[in-house]
Each structure stands twice: as structure tokens, then as C-alpha cells.
């Protein structure tokens, strides 16, 4: 499996991807649906979460990856940009810092950055989106669970299913077995226990062109299966819908599922989920410091519609709160059924 970029796939050209995502679904645009729900133009409510993409480098090459990440990607955040992020964290209303990638841990300044955030605030919530296998990828990462514990990070990790077949078919051969080992290491560090302050949350996303299951029912099933099969505990399961961009879009087009999938998302449009989309309280920072409405818009290179504040170095909270969120057809993925966000269902 190679990234779209390495394959020089037409979809690695953003202009082409945006063209595909501009087509109405059965004559309907996402903005039309929001208008029906009195939500257009879509505006932020406040900015609580700073989601920082520390780079596109990853030890895995998952089939559905919206970042088009892989080990050979070179785009990673510099210390200079991290310092600019720290400045914003110090001087804004940010309550949560959400670190993502690629594998954020592969950024050589990852640990330094977290230590610096903790120097600013002991209370600020820090989330790390850990792909689990990174912990076992190299001896230098084996102590990550201990590092997370020391700095009281919340760990959010993808595990598409409680069986090897389904997990490996989406994330690569052997990923399930390694993920189970990593989860055990996290449990051993105190993560995921029922009353523990150290939260370990798992992320489920469908392994194909269908919508996710209802979150609480699936959480119970995951808990039962992981406990009985592997003695593993975790706190919550977040169900996430695959958004039709990047590698998942390529899969949809190649398998001729694109039209049906988009219709499914449209049919399942839920105004309650629309009111709660995550871009309303989040700003996403790219590896190079540019600002986006969310990690998906970041991958589509759709910078925030606030000309005076498009880079972390020129952060202007007022301009950001007053901006209009940029919408395309992929947004239907956030509003289908029970809704979808980096924190799971929204409705």
C-alpha cells in the first residue's frame, strides 16, 4: 500500500479532489441542507479546541487515511511553529489541545512540545491520537505509555474492530495483534480502568462504504469482546463516519460506491448533528502552521476564511470566531445519522 501522493494518483491533486467534492448529491449541496436547518452560513460558537497536526509521517498506511499518511511523508511541524502554537495556548480560550498526525509521536519535538504545554497549564486537557502500533514500532517508543501517564494525556486510538481480520484489512497486516499488545501496555500504565483519570478511548470507523453503528451499543460489544478475549479495558468508544476525501474517496470511486455512499450520507442528514459539527468549536493547525476549520478541510487545503488570521503566527481570536466555515460535500459525513466528530457521535 502506497500513499496517493507516492502513486502520483490524480486524487493527490487537491484541485481534482475538490472538483469531485463540488458535485451536488441528487441535486443537493451541503450548504442547501444547512440552510433548511437555519445553519447557513455556518459560524463557530467559540474556540475551545486546538487540534494540531504534527505531521503527515506515520508508521502505518491505512486504506482509509484522510491524511494520506505514510512513513515517507516529509511534512512535519517545526519547533518554530510549535512555539507559535504555545503562544496561542498561553493567550487564548483554548481548553483542549488535540494532537494528531500522521503519528504525532514521530515528530522529534513531540515530547518537548507536551512538556512545554504542561508548563503553561497543569489543567489544560491534552489529547494524543495514538495509533497504538507506534508504541511497539521502535524501542525508543516503548515508554510512551509512561510518558502519557506522567503528563496526564488522554489517549484516543483507532481500533476498527475487535477481530484481526477486519482491523488488519483496514490498517495493515499484523496491526490488530500489535494494537492489542499496545493496549495492554496502556492498561498496565493505568489507562482505561473504569474509575481512572487516565482516559483511554477507542475509535471505531466502518471498514467500507457504510455508516457506523450506534455508539453506546457498539461500545458495550467492544468492551465485552476485548475484556473476554484479551483482558483489555478502555473508557469510551467513539464511532466515526468515514468522510469521502483522500484515500477513502479513492476507494469509493474505484469500487463504484461513491454515488450510493453520498446518497446514503444525504438521506441520513441530521439537523441536530449539523448544529453540533466539530468545526464550530475547533481550530485545526496544519504541520506548517496554517489554520483550518477542521482536519478534513486541512487535507483539502481550504484555509480558514479569515484573511487576517490564516496562520498560527497571526492568531486573531475575534476574526476566527466571526469567520464563516468553509463547506463542501464531504461535510455530509459529519451530519449523517448520529453525527461524527473526532469525539465520536454528536447527536
Amino acid at each position: 500500500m502506497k500513499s496517493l501522493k507516492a502513486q502520483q494518483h490524480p486524487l493527490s491533486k487537491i484541485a481534482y479532489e475538490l472538483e469531485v467534492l463540488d458535485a451536488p448529491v441528487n441535486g443537493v449541496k451541503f450548504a442547501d441542507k444547512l440552510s433548511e436547518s437555519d445553519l447557513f452560513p455556518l459560524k463557530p460558537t467559540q474556540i475551545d479546541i486546538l487540534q494540531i497536526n504534527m505531521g503527515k509521517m506515520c508508521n502505518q498506511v491505512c486504506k482509509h487515511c484522510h491524511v494520506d499518511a505514510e512513513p515517507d511523508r516529509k511534512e512535519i511541524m517545526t519547533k518554530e511553529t510549535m512555539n507559535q502554537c504555545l503562544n496561542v495556548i498561553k493567550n487564548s480560550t483554548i481548553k483542549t489541545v488535540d494532537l494528531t498526525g500522521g503519528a504525532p509521536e514521530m515528530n522529534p519535538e513531540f515530547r518537548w512540545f507536551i512538556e512545554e504545554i504542561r508548563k503553561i497549564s497543569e489543567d489544560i486537557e491534552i489529547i494524543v491520537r495514538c495509533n497504538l502500533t507506534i508504541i511497539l514500532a521502535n524501542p525508543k517508543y516503548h515508554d510512551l505509555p509512561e510518558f502519557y501517564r506522567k503528563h496526564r494525556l488522554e489517549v484516543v486510538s483507532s481500533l476498527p474492530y475487535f477481530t484481526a481480520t477486519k482491523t488488519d484489512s483496514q490498517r495493515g497486516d499484523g496491526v490488530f495483534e500489535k494494537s492489542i499488545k499496545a493496549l495492554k501496555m496502556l492498561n498496565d500504565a493505568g489507562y482505561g480502568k473504569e474509575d481512572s483519570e487516565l482516559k483511554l478511548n477507542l475509535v471505531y470507523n466502518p471498514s467500507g462504504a457504510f455508516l457506523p453503528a450506534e455508539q453506546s451499543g457498539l461500545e458495550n460489544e467492544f468492551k465485552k469482546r476485548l475484556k473476554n478475549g484479551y483482558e483489555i479495558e478502555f473508557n469510551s468508544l467513539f464511532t466515526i463516519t468515514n468522510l469521502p476525501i483522500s484515500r477513502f474517496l479513492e476507494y469509493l470511486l474505484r469500487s463504484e460506491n461513491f454515488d450510493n455512499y453520498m446518497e446514503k450520507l444525504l438521506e441520513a442528514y441530521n439537523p441536530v448533528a449539523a448544529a453540533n459539527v466539530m468545526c464550530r468549536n475547533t481550530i485545526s493547525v496544519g504541520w506548517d502552521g496554517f489554520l483550518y476549520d477542521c482536519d478534513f478541510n486541512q487535507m483539502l487545503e481550504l484555509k480558514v476564511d479569515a484573511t487576517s488570521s490564516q496562520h498560527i503566527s497571526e492568531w486573531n481570536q475575534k476574526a476566527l470566531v466571526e469567520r464563516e466555515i468553509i463547506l463542501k460535500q464531504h461535510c455530509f459525513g459529519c451530519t449523517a445519522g448520529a453525527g461524527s466528530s473526532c469525539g465520536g457521535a454528536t447527536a
Partner: protein
Amino acid sequence: MKTYYNPDDLKNFGKIGEFQKPMADKFFEYYGEVFKEGALTAREKSLIALAVAHAIQCPYCIDAYTVDTMEKGCDEEQMMEAVHVAAAIRGGASLVHSTQMMNKVKEISM
């Protein structure tokens, strides 16, 4: 090529009220009620529906409940086990009738 079944017709199921609205409305209301979470979970009901779809060999229902069970978080193994339940009952239903055959054989044999 013309065929008796057209996958796109599944999307038109909701339009059967065009010819008889009150009955269709009652049916869909009942249908919705049946599949709600109850003493059985929505997931269990979906697996039963998948098994029944195979027993009655309805291609529309097989399509619909394959997607539905997957959207309820079931995996291929669970889905295939449900179909085996349908197959076992169908096979068993044929075989259990062999007792009638056996009775008849005994009745007319010396």
C-alpha cells in the same frame, strides 16, 4: 438486459403507498415499531432479519439487511452464522417432515 429484479427498486419500496396509502402507512409504522430497540436489541433484530431474508430468499431484503447488520456493527462471521441458522431451520424443516414419510412407509409396508 431485462430482469425481474432491479436493485434500484429497493429505493422505491417507500412508494408502495402510491396505490394504497392507508395500508402502506400502517405497514411502515408497524415495520418501524418492530425494528426499534426493545426486549431484543436493534442489532439482534437486524441479524434475525438477515437470516429470514435468506430463508425467504428475497434479494432486496438480503441487500438491505447485509448493509443494516454491518451498520449495526456485526462482522462477516456473525452474519454468516445467522444465515446458517436460517439454513439449519430450512434443512431441518425438510428433514423433520421425513418422519411423515417414514410413518407412511411403515404404514404401507409388510
